[in-house]
């Protein structure tokens, strides 16, 4: 079957989401789905040592990625400070601004907006009423489906595996990761650190036979 022509977009996918304990199961599913589809995840957790200001790093990351996954489901009050968490809508705004006012490359940006539930979405960001988010209901399988549907095809234009195959591979990875970590002299916590986690994901995808 002839392959569809690949879009002229790069394979880097920016992830804009909360980095907290409650979100890790969804974050890990997003990273896995991106790599299992042949793309590369990028996020603020990478390369935290080069001394750039956080905002400069974010601008560079957002500018470098033609696609973005923006989860706006956790814009609630922080338990500690009792203030809303503005990071995710802010970073989404930077991406929208780049797309609106940037050069031709930036104008081709694609974004997937994730939200928890339909009920939570509408009152949260009324300026985004024209945008139709995907609702994940805090369910990693729904996140994988949303990412898969958003990416559509592999970077070289091939069909992607179905959501069940991706979910089964993710489940297998989750089950095997403690043993893989042990084989590589890592604790599970160390294996879950972003740079290690993406390395384990990529190694798992190429080493297993599915």
């Amino acid at each position, binding site marked *: 079957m002839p392959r569809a022509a690949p879009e002229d977009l790069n394979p880097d996918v920016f992830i804009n989401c909360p980095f907290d304990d409650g979100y890790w199961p969804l974050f890990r599913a997003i990273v896995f789905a991106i790599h299992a589809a042949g793309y590369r995840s990028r996020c603020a957790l990478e390369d935290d040592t080069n001394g750039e200001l956080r905002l400069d790093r974010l601008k560079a990351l957002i500018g470098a990625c033609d696609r973005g996954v923006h989860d706006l489901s956790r814009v609630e009050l922080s338990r500690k400070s009792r203030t809303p968490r503005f990071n995710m809508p802010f970073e989404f705004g930077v991406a929208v601004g780049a797309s609106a006012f940037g050069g031709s490359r930036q104008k081709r940006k694609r974004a997937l907006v994730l939200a928890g539930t339909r009920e939570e979405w509408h009152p949260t960001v009324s300026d985004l009423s024209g945008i139709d988010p995907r609702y994940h209901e805090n369910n990693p399988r729904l996140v994988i489906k949303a990412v898969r549907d958003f990416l559509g095809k592999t*970077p070289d234009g091939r069909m992607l*595996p179905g959501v069940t*195959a991706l979910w089964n591979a993710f489940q297998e990875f989750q089950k095997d990761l403690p043993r893989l970590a042990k084989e590589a002299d890592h604790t599970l916590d160390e294996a879950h650190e972003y740079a290690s986690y993406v*390395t384990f994901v990529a*190694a798992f*995808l190429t*080493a297993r036979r*599915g």
Partner: protein
Amino acid sequence: MKKKSKGASAGNASKAASARYATIGGVKIKVANPVSAAKRAPEIREAVRSFYAARRA
């Protein structure tokens, strides 16, 4: 007709040889190298490769 440089051709061959693929649900996917790989990435890759090789044996 432009002559292909030997260097470019060798580079492409080397790239193709080092490309790594996954098979998920019968679909072959070219797996991209992570941008932010762990410092001990070669050790992790080797440990994971050995783990699945041993499981298949």
